[in-house]
């Protein structure tokens, strides 16, 4: 268990293993709707993909109770994942809570820009909920940790370290995933610079773009318009989005 109430679950499925980091699995549990969960690790060689999730309700509880060997009904990979960074410029990952897992999938696939160390900033409410810190260190990342209560790393949010990193890396690329309030702050902190990619969450119906349930406010061709997290996202560039 990566943290209390968190479960990482591996599935054997060559098509899923080919996902782009930031794409998601739409998992049938019980109840009327599938559950969207990002991939935390992808092993295309063995055809395995992992999802890492927090047990928060009926669907994730059911999923966490599945035994080894169980057959799951998963649609995917769905959505638009993170574009790989321009490998001539430094990049930084910013993750909060259960937004951290998809960043690990990205970190595992992407190569650092020459003469830079990739940076990872991880936030959580409290130390016990902090996910995957060691994994990013093992990949050679420089890791900053923040917790709301100061029980681990810096007290505060990911925005502190991010602002410092951005100041030092004016051409840096940012990849963030976490709660909306955090993404909104990341968007604000990163000012006008390009190459800020944000992975969003929204309640979903179909997961394939058909029902228009999963929208967030974005910039359309003719002014503000709703964008679908499942099909237009979940990863958006900062310019595509409007935060309240």
């Amino acid at each position, binding site marked *: 268990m990566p943290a209390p109430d968190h479960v990482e679950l591996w599935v054997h499925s060559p098509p899923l293993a080919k996902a782009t980091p930031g794409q998601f699995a739409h998992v049938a549990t019980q*109840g009327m709707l599938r559950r969207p969960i990002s991939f935390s690790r992808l092993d295309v060689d063995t055809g395995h993909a992992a999802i890492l999730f927090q047990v928060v309700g009926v669907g994730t509880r059911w999923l966490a109770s599945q035994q080894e060997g169980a057959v799951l009904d998963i*649609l995917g990979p769905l959505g638009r994942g993170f574009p790989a960074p321009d490998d001539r410029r430094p990049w930084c990952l910013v993750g909060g809570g259960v937004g951290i897992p998809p960043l690990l999938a990205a970190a595992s696939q992407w190569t650092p820009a020459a003469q830079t160390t990739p940076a990872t900033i991880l936030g959580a409410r409290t130390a016990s909920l902090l996910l995957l810190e060691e994994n990013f260190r093992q990949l050679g990342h420089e890791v900053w940790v923040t917790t709301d209560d100061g029980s681990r790393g810096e007290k505060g949010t990911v925005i502190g370290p991010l602002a410092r990193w951005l100041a030092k890396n004016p051409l840096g690329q940012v990849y963030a995933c976490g709660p909306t309030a955090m993404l909104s702050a990341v968007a604000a902190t990163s000012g006008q610079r390009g190459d800020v990619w944000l992975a969003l969450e929204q309640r979903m119906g179909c997961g394939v773009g058909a*029902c228009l349930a999963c929208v967030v406010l974005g910039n359309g061709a003719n002014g503000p318009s709703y964008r679908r997290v499942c099909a237009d996202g979940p990863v958006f560039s900062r310019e595509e989005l409007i935060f309240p």
Partner: protein
Amino acid sequence: MNLAVSLPRGLKLKNPIIAASGTFGFGPEYASLVDMSVLGGISVKGLSPDPWPGNPPPRVWETPMGLLNSIGLQNHGVEVFCQQDLPFLRNADTRIIANIIGHTVDEYRRVAARLSRESGIDALEVNISCPNIKEGGMSFGQDPDQAAQVMSAVRAETDLPVMVKISPNTTYPAMIAKAVEDAGADMISAINTVVGMAIDVRHRRPALGGITGGLSGPAIKPIALRIVYEVAQAVEIPVVGMGGISSTMDVVEFLMAGAAAVMVGTITFQYPRRMQEIVAELPEVISELGFDGLSDVVGSALPGRSHAAPVMVEDYE
């Protein structure tokens, strides 16, 4: 077994299973998962004359065996549909039903007129659950006169087969059905979603961005069956039934209650291939229940039909 269904104005379906409006997008979204050519038809997302933005998120919420949605009929408007979506749909080997919406009688008329100029549309489905903004927001589907006005306006613009989709959120749905039949409707589709809501307890507020939403899914099946059963007796025109269908047996319930065909909605989100499975299972299920063909099933539970005869006589159960 031949599953074909003949409906008014020459509308012929391969089989009685149609994807319900709003749950199947404009076709391409599910194309990699569902073989559209296996379906009797698809009813596309509601189309208004101009784009509608829809409601703020969250737009869906689970309830016991049900789904609340407050999409708010977001769509990019009939013009974009004709240019962008119709070319794909014209190549789909299934019947295309265009679901039309409006805030005034004239808006309905405009959409119908625009669509009638295009090829590739096999029928119109008039969704009268929209609020009539001229008449203070009561939905067209809650008042027989207003519903009839919409139907008459659409009829004047098109020779396509037209079905009117009635709302369960009214005292006498069958009265609305009768009114639109008299105004020239070729079919009735029933039912649209039931108004409902949920509370997000942790945030102390309504769960949906639109406050109230439409309830769909198996939870509403008994409500839908009752309305189909009543409407089938109130009108002479065919009824397309829907509301909570998730299995082949559910389809049989609707057919027995008087539906000539059915639409399948919410279950597609969980099991995109369920409609295909139902099409595959239907002949065997119908035979096992002792029927010779699809048309014998339709209406077999209506008053005056073979009621008393159980399918199998089981002296000892």
